[in-house]
C-alpha cells in the first residue's frame, strides 16, 4: 500500500510570509496528525484529526497556524505569517486508530 505523501519536501521563505503544506494519508486511515520537529528535538503534535473533525489542537499556535482536512482525506497545514522559530520539519502521520502511526517524509521549512 502507498505510504503517507507530503509536499513540498523543502520550502524556504522569509519571515512574515505565508506557507502551506499538503498531506495525503494512507487510504482508509481515519486519523491524521501533524507534528512539528525542531532541530535536535523529537516531534511534537500540532493537531490531530479524526475524519474531518479536530480531536486535539491544544499545541497549535492558532494565531498563526491553521489546518483543515476537508472530506476527511487530504489535509493542509498553513502558517501565516511565519516566524523564524517556525523553522522545522513538519511531519504528517496517519493511523487506523489502532495505536500505530505511519509517517510521511516530512516538509523541511526554513524561515529566513
Amino acid at each position, binding site marked *: 500500500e502507498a505510504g503517507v505523501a507530503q509536499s513540498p519536501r523543502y520550502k524556504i521563505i522569509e519571515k512574515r510570509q505565508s506557507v502551506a503544506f499538503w498531506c495525503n494519508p494512507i487510504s482508509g486511515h481515519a486519523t491524521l496528525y501533524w507534528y512539528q520537529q525542531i532541530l535536535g528535538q*523529537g516531534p511534537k503534535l500540532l493537531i490531530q484529526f479524526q475524519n474531518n473533525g479536530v480531536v486535539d489542537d491544544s499545541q497549535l499556535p492558532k494565531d498563526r497556524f491553521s489546518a483543515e482536512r476537508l472530506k476527511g482525506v487530504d489535509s493542509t497545514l498553513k502558517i501565516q505569517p511565519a516566524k523564524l522559530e517556525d523553522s522545522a520539519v513538519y511531519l504528517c502521520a496517519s493511523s487506523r486508530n489502532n495505536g*500505530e502511526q505511519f509517517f510521511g517524509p516530512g516538509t523541511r521549512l526554513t524561515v529566513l
Partner: protein
Amino acid sequence: AQSVTQPDIHITVSEGASLELRCNYSYGATPYLFWYVQSPGQGLQLLLKYFSGDTLVQGIKGFEAEFKRSQSSFNLRKPSVHWSDAAEYFCAVGTRSEKLVFGKGTKLTVNP
C-alpha cells in the same frame, strides 16, 4: 502528563558491537510504547511497538526492546550493529487513539 526521557543524546559504537538505547517514560497507565528510527532527511520509520503481552518484542532490522513496568523503561537493543544503523532513534509513548509523545532522540554513530 506523559513524558519520555532518552538520557543519551549521542552514542558511538563500533560496527559489530552490541547496542542498547535507553528510554524511560512517565504515564498514568500502561501505554503503547514505540521505537522509531529517522535517517537524515527522512521521515520516521517504526522499528517496533509494545501494546501488551510478552514484554520482549522483536522488530525490524534485528532490533528488540524490553518493557519493564517496574522501571518504567523500554530499552532498545541490537546484538551486532551495522554501519547502516547510523541514524537517530526516537522512543515514543501513546495510546490507541491519541497523539504520540516523543523523547528528544538518541543519535547513533557507527565507527568502522
